């Protein structure tokens, strides 16, 4: 447990010291969302209608942008060998890294979303569910992304390959995330959709952690 927390703290500390990708991800999210009013035109009804989808799809792309580097620097400086030899099972090492990564990217994305929703003219009835859905969905995105990052570790043009591998797997979270917000906007129950998002997260935790650990062992050989 001490080792787990030390690892989370290490990643947060490293990210804050190095002025990490986390800030870039947030700026990307902000700019990408704000491009839509320019692209679609200043028609409030249309923007409000597509706002949920825009916020989710850009959040998904922002999450993808950040996850690529998750294991790269560990691999390059030899830390990955040392992490594999820690008295902590490798899936828990992965969990610690994903958790730190989510605290730096997923959580700020979630908290930023309602402010961007204002810019898109989304009805404020939807804000609580938007935040809740992102809070449940972005950890799943981070977990799936970690698996992709581990599989493409050491590959040339890993970034493009990662997107091809991971984007299809993001679709379920996207569908139910958008559906939850739309349901609350139209006055329907959003709980079933949120429950499915939570179920996706619960399934992703064991599956992605063990698969990521296995992929990292391959990368070590």
């Amino acid at each position, binding site marked *: 447990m001490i080792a787990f927390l030390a690892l989370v703290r290490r990643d947060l500390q490293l990210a804050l010291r190095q002025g990490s990708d986390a800030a870039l991800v947030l700026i990307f999210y902000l700019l990408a969302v704000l491009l839509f009013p320019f692209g679609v035109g200043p028609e409030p009804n249309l923007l409000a209608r597509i706002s949920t989808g825009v916020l989710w799809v850009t959040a998904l792309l922002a999450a993808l942008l950040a996850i690529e580097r998750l294991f790269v620097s560990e691999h390059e*400086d030899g830390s990955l060998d040392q992490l*594999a030899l820690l008295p902590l099972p490798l899936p828990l090492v992965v969990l610690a890294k994903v958790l730190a990564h989510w605290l730096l990217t997923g959580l700020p994305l979630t908290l930023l979303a309602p402010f961007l929703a204002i810019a898109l003219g989304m009805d404020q009835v939807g804000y609580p569910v938007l935040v809740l859905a992102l809070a449940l969905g972005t950890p799943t995105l981070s977990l799936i992304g970690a698996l992709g990052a581990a599989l493409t570790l050491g590959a040339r043009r890993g970034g493009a390959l990662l997107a091809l591998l991971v984007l299809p797997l993001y679709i379920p979270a996207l569908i139910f995330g958008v559906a939850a917000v739309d349901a609350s906007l139209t006055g329907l129950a959003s709980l079933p959709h949120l429950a499915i998002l939570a179920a996706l997260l619960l399934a992703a935790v064991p599956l992605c952690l063990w698969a990521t650990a296995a992929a990292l062992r391959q990368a070590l050989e």
Partner: protein
Amino acid sequence: MTLFAGHGLACRRGERLVFTGLSFRVAAGEALLLRGPNGSGKSSLLRCMAGLLVPVAGAQTWDEQPVALDRDAHSARLRYLGHQDAVKPALTVLENLALWQQLHGVSDAAALRRALSALGLDPLAELPARLLSAGQRRRVALARLLAAPAPLWLLDEPTTALDDEGVGRFARMVGDHRGSGGLVVLSSHGDPGVAGEVLALADFTPAPGGES
């Protein structure tokens, strides 16, 4: 008496069989020096010993117990130092070592100070590791061995980038470790300042063309 041994080990990298039929034994207080030309499998053997690489044949034992049975126990009793130093450039020397201790569940400030002074790192303790030279970074990597002790040291060319004074400190460190019953396996091209049994890996390179 602690004994780390391997029997009939073979290792494959891609399509190539790097070594085959390799056996070794290291007892408490002993050092094993791996020698051989580039590509003869010194690093691969060390990674096999560390459990990072799975040999295609053979078995390793620790006190007659197969290592493969309990990987976690094996990782807990070894420290591996590879080609790369695994030192985080954004953290200071002291933070790097303290973090290493936390990750291994050790909290021993005295060991931390001993590690710093054993490698002559005291004046650099508060410096971010990105400002260090290659030799200084290597010293930090070696200091980790002392900060969180373990009986088996697996060192891949540990004296690379070290100056003569650094090699002397390293030799003393290894001597102390062996004196207290530790085991050391190290690969080296030059003179690491450590005496011990030599394992020539060239003897286990399979004959070209003939693969059994």
